[in-house]
């Protein structure tokens, strides 16, 4: 059952990704990407990363993509399609390099001993049982990764200030 669901969502994710790259109108691309994000969230749930799945939808689908959508609409890039695909040569070169990267990564992953199972699934199960979906991720985040967490907070603040400054009409 879960495997079947996984394949369905994986297919949807790939379809969304392809649709994004091929989409003629920006809004169409964007909505395809939302589909991909949604499928990825579903896959996260299948991988028992419930919290990440929720955050994926809240952050990506709910915030980042809406922001993109808003910008697309603000710049009125809606309907009038302007050809922005590169020439055939670029398409070939791009596909070949992406293929090479894909091949190499797959090869790196299938190398014997590349992935060592350290019992992560059991650890996650235990954490979910003991601390529920949010606590399981909150504990390591606020205990071992406090400093990176604070740093991302600072990063967000800086990004916010930068975005406001950039997008402001008159400084």
């Amino acid at each position: 059952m879960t495997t079947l669901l996984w394949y369905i969502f994986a297919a949807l994710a790939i379809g969304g990704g392809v649709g994004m790259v091929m989409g003629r109108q920006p809004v169409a691309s964007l909505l395809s990407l939302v589909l991909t994000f949604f499928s990825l969230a579903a896959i996260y749930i299948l991988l028992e990363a419930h919290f990440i799945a929720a955050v994926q939808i809240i952050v990506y689908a709910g915030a980042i993509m809406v922001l993109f959508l808003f910008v697309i609409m603000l710049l009125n890039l809606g309907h009038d399609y302007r050809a922005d695909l590169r020439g055939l040569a670029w398409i070939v070169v791009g596909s070949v390099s992406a293929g090479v990267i894909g091949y190499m990564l797959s090869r790196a992953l299938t190398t014997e001993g590349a992935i060592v199972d350290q019992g992560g699934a059991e650890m996650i199960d235990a954490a979910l049982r003991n601390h529920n979906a949010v606590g399981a991720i909150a504990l390591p985040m606020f205990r071992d990764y406090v400093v990176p967490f604070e740093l991302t907070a600072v990063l967000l603040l800086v990004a916010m200030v930068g975005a406001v400054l950039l997008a402001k009409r008159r400084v």
Partner: protein
Amino acid sequence: MSFEPTLLWAILLLPLTGFVVNGLTAFLAPERKQIPTLVGPGVVAAAFVIALVNFFRMSGAEHLDPVIVSYWSWMPVGSLQIDAALQLDQLSILMTLIITGVGSLIHIFSIGYMKADPGYPRYFAYLNLFVFFMLVLVLGANFPVMFVGWEGVGLCSYLLIGFWFKDREKADAGKKAFIVNRIGDFGFLVAMFLIFTNLGSLDFRDVFAAAPEMFTYGAPVVTAITLFLFLGATGKSAQIPLYVWLPDAMAGPTPVSALIHAATMVTAGVYMVARANVLFALAPLSSTVVAFVGALTALFAATIGLAQNDIKKVLAYSTVSQLGYMFIGVGVGAYAAGVFHLMTHAFFKALLFLGAGAVIHAMHEAFHATHKDWDPQDMRNMGGLRRFMPITWITMWVATLAIAGIWPFAGFFSKDEIIWQAAVHAVGPYAGWAKLIWFMALAAAILTAVYMTRLMILTFHGENRSGKEEAKHLHEVPPVMWVPLAVLAVLSVVGGWVNVPHEIADLPVLGWIPTSEWLHHWLEPLTHTADAIIAGNLGELSDTAPVGGGAGAWAVISFVLAAVVIALTARTLLGRSYRPAHEAAPATGFLRVLQNKWYVDEIYDAIVVRPVIATSRFLWRYVDQLIIDGLVNGAAHLARGFGAIGSRLQTGQLNTYAFAVIIGVILLLGFVVL
């Protein structure tokens, strides 16, 4: 043996509550003086009572281990675990008693002194905040918590020195204190980093337990740590070279000078060295530096004190000098002696400052009544005040005799012990230095007697120089101000009796006070590790002074010497006649050098401030503009040359750049995979 402290958190929380209440009053209803009058002294007195309860409960127990109460985890980052924890032990309870006890007396005195000030609630808010931070400093169970208190008292000191911030000079004095203290704080911080990297902890208990095992005697690391700690101490405790802020700190209200710049905050450095006694015992070089800087400061400040005319300046330099004594004590390894002098000094120096405050208060009111614009702090304008202010006169004499080292006053026992300890520790590799220190300490003791007698004679004896009309307005201060003086006078007498060494008790007349050596026994649990280290490495201590003679003999000698010096000074000065400040001739010769404080401020300006500016200017004009800019411009020309060639590669197209990145990724991946 375990011990559960009583309401330890309340000792800290009470002054903080006082701060909040008084601070809100200052904001919302500055004219409501009843609230600060009750709350300000009340919270400190309540904290004193709690501290007293704890003290008596502790004194019932033998060899108590330090009690550490951890409230919450403050900085849990990786291997660094810092708790907001308090440590109650023999040293910290002693400091707490001094701070809250002397502090509450000074708070009470302030009610009278600051009565007419418009910033009355703000004053008490700051004072309570100060007490809170000082208690954090002494009660903290690790270096960072101590550092919070350390910075906090610095802040309060700044706020209180610049309390009358509308006066430019006073605000500047506050800034000077703050900036000079920063230099010391830098040392403290570096020391903390070193301790953490070497010992992996900042808790007092862990650090002092691990240090003797981790460091060999005299190891460079521990020497560096202790020297940086001492740099911190010189800043806070006004030692050479960072003492310059303390005399200027007299710009604050006089009770503040009594509390912060005489009795408590400036002793923080001594407390810190005494707290870190294990580390200092492991570093003989640093200890000698501590003692020598202390001796130098004691002597140096005493000479400046000889020629000052401002009553508070004399006391300020006297404070610097007495702090020097404390550092001699903790420097030579006699930690209990240093803490002992810290305690007795808190009594008599607080008394002296409050007495001076009373005098200034009276003079100010007198001048104010007749609208005379004379300086109420200048001793040349005083004279003959004993007729008008008998209580102040008597109590100040008690303090003077105490600080000069007259038996049986408190200072005699503590100062004599420090001098004697310097003598007996004159063994081992640094024996020569210790002898010199002993000698300097003796000389400073004589100078102390001289300048204190001069202060008393100029202020209270001889003819009144304030003017006829003004003299009618001179009167004794109200009870709310003289009662604290009287209490402190009693303490200045009996304060030394808690630690009478048996050598003195064996003497014929001076031995009237029985031996107790209580303080030594009391602090023994905290100092025995350090004592063992010193005894193990320094060898047998000497039992005679460098020029011969035992403890008893030198006690008699120093007592007689002080008494003779006081008598001689009094005789000489009483014979002279003085003129008020505006009529007095400017000082000449050596006296002028002393009056200008050996021109240290000017020397600092010449050798530190100006060279820094000049060097910066040189670096800017020549190094930066000629050499570095030349190099940079040359490099730029070179780069422009290459760039002209390389820019042909730049298409300005984002996809091309992305493609370059991807080629790089492929190459790297290929490197890893294939």
